[in-house]
C-alpha cells in the first residue's frame, strides 16, 4: 500500500507540475463557471416556461418544454462530448508515465527499491487511472450538480456515463503503457493510442468493409481486428444510451450488450499483462 501511495503522490505531483493538466483544469473550470452563470431557466410545474442564455431570452414560442426531457437531451449530448474529450485529455495527461519512468537516471532510482517491477508498473497504472478519474469526475460531477441546481432534476444515469468513459480510459491507458514500455517515447504512446481509438471506431462497420474487400483473407483479417481491438464506437454509443435510458434511440440501446464490454476488457487485460511481462524482462 505504501508503494501505491508513494507512486500516487509522485504521479499527482508531476501532474500538478505539468502545464497540460493545469490548463485542463483551468479550461474545465472556466467552462463550468460560464455554464453555471449563463444558463437561467424559468421552470413552472416541471416544464420549462422560459429560459435565458447569457442574459438573452430564449424564444419558447408559447410551448413549454418538459424540463426532464430537456435535461436528458442535454446530458446525453454532453456525455458524448465528454467521452471523446475526456478520453483524449486523460491519455494526453497520463501517457508519459511509463516513458518518463524508463528514462536513464530515473529508472535506476525506482528499481533500486524493494519493489517488484510488475508492482511498480501497475501502481503507476492505478495512479494514472486515479488521475484520469479525478479529471473526468470533476467535469461530469460539476456539470451534474449545476444541472441539479438549475433545474432541480436529479438524474443519476448521467454519472453512469462517466463509469463507461473511465472504462475506456482504463483500456486505452493499458495500451499506452504497453507502447510506453516498448518504445519509451511519450509521443509514440499518445499517437498510437489515438490511432487505435479511431481505427477501432472505424471497425464498427467491419461487416460492410469485409464485404467490400476482394479477398477472403482480407475480410477475415478485418473481422479479427474488430474482435481484437477495443470497441470504441460501440462504447461511445453505450455512454449515450446509458445516460438516455429508456429515451435512447433503439440503434443506441442495441449496443448495450456484454460483448463490447467483455472484448474491450480482454484487450485491456492482455495489454497490461504484456506490458508487465515486457517490463519484467526489460534490461536497463
Amino acid at each position, binding site marked *: 500500500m505504501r508503494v501505491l501511495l508513494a507512486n500516487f*503522490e*509522485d504521479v499527482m505531483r508531476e501532474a500538478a507540475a505539468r502545464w497540460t493538466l493545469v490548463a485542463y483544469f483551468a479550461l474545465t473550470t472556466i467552462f463550468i463557471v460560464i455554464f453555471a452563470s449563463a444558463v437561467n431557466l424559468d421552470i413552472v410545474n416541471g416544464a420549462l416556461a422560459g429560459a435565458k442564455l447569457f442574459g438573452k431570452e430564449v424564444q419558447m414560442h408559447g410551448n413549454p418544454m418538459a424540463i426532464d426531457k430537456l435535461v436528458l437531451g442535454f446530458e446525453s449530448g454532453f456525455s458524448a462530448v465528454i467521452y471523446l474529450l475526456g478520453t483524449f485529455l486523460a491519455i494526453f495527461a497520463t501517457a508519459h508515465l511509463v516513458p518518463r519512468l524508463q528514462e536513464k537516471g530515473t529508472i535506476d532510482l525506482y528499481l533500486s527499491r524493494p519493489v*517488484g517491477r510488475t508492482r511498480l508498473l501497475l501502481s503507476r497504472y492505478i495512479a494514472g487511472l486515479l488521475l484520469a478519474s479525478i479529471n473526468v469526475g470533476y467535469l461530469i460531477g460539476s456539470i451534474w450538480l449545476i444541472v441539479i441546481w438549475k433545474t432541480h432534476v436529479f438524474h443519476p444515469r448521467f454519472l453512469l456515463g462517466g463509469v463507461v468513459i473511465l472504462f475506456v480510459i482504463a483500456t486505452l491507458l493499458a495500451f499506452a503503457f504497453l507502447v510506453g514500455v516498448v518504445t519509451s517515447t511519450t509521443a509514440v504512446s499518445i499517437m498510437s493510442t489515438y490511432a487505435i481509438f479511431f481505427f477501432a471506431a472505424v471497425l464498427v462497420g467491419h461487416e460492410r468493409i469485409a464485404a467490400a474487400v476482394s479477398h477472403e483473407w482480407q475480410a477475415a483479417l478485418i473481422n479479427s481486428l474488430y474482435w481484437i481491438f477495443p470497441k470504441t464506437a460501440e462504447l461511445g454509443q453505450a455512454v449515450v444510451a446509458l445516460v438516455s435510458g429508456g429515451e435512447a434511440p433503439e440503434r443506441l440501446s442495441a449496443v448495450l450488450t456484454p460483448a463490447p464490454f467483455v472484448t474491450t476488457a480482454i484487450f485491456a487485460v492482455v495489454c497490461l499483462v504484456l506490458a508487465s511481462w515486457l517490463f519484467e524482462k526489460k534490461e536497463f
Partner: protein
Amino acid sequence: MTPAAIEVSGLRKTYASAFGRRRIAALNGVDLRVAPGELFGLLGPNGAGKTTTVKILLGLTRATAGTAAISGLPVGDPESRRRVGYLPEGHKIPGYLTARQALSIFGRMSGMDRATIDRRSVELLEKLRIAAWIDVKVRKFSKGMTQRLGLACALVHSPDVLLLDEPTDGVDPVGRREIRDILREEARNGTAVLLNSHLLSEIELTCDRVAVLRKGEVAAAGTIDELTKKSPKFKMVATPIDESLLAGFRSTGAGVERVNGHLLLSVTDAEHLNALIDRTRAAGSLVTELSPMRSTLEDVFVDLIKASGDSEVGGADAGPARPPVSVGSASAELPFAGNLSSARNHEDAQ
C-alpha cells in the same frame, strides 16, 4: 557465518545485437566479495564492466551466467534491495519534487513509515549541509546539491549496502571530504560500501579494498596498500655521481635513471640495493638520501590498462574466457605485480 554484504561469483554478461549477430561480453566471469562494514572501490576504464556489475546487483539487468547476492539474498529477489541504497551516475531525481518530497517518496518505496522518514530526512540533509533547501524544488538545485540529495535518497532507509556511482561528481572539495567522512561513518556502522568512480584519488582516500576491472574481468584486487605497495624502485641522492659509477650499476642488472639531480634505481631485492650502495661508497661518493618509491593507485591503474595492450573502449567479443581472478576478502592476488616495477612514480610526477 555472516553472509557477505555483496557476493558475486562467476558473473558473466553478454549483450547481443538485435538479431544476435554480434555478441559483446561485458562481464567475463567476475568474482567479488564485499564484507559488511567494508569500503570497496570498483575501478576500470570505460566499458570494463563496472556499471554492468552494479546493474546486475540491483536487478536492472540480468546476468547471462553466474550468481550475485546481496546480504545472502539472490539479486533476482526484490527483497534483496530492501537494505540497499543506490546512487546512480547522472541520476534524475524528479525536478518537480522538493528534497523533502523526494526523500518521502523513495523512503516509502523502501517500506519506511512517514515519521521515520521525516526524522531521517532532516538528519541527513543537515549532515549533507542542504537542510535549508529541504522545501525547495529539486530543479533549482545546483549539480553538487543534487548529488548530495541523491546520496540522501540512497541513505534515507539506513541501508546495509551502499552502491555509489561517482558520488562526488560535481561536488566541491569541502563537500567531497564531507561525503568521504559520511561514507566512513556508514562503514563504521557496518554498512558495506561499493564505490564506483573514475576519480582514483577519491577511491584511494576512501576505500579499504579495490578491484580493477578490465574487459569484463577482475584484473587486480586487494587493499590499497597491497596494490600500491612499495615497488622495488628507490630514489637515491648521492654526490658525486659520475657515468662510470652508473655504468657499474647497470652492469649488475639494475635499472638506472637520472631524474632532477637524483637517481632512480630499479633493483631486484634488498641485497641488490645494498650492493649498489657499497659500490657508491667505494667510489668515494656520499649517499645523502635513499627512499623507497611508492606507486599511486593511478599509477597502478594506468599500468594495468596499458598492460592489456588494448585501450579500446568496451567489452571484448564473446568467446572462451580466461578463468576469473579469484578475489578473497583477506588476501588478494596481485596478478599484475610485475607491472608495479614499471609504475610511474608519484613523486616524480611532483
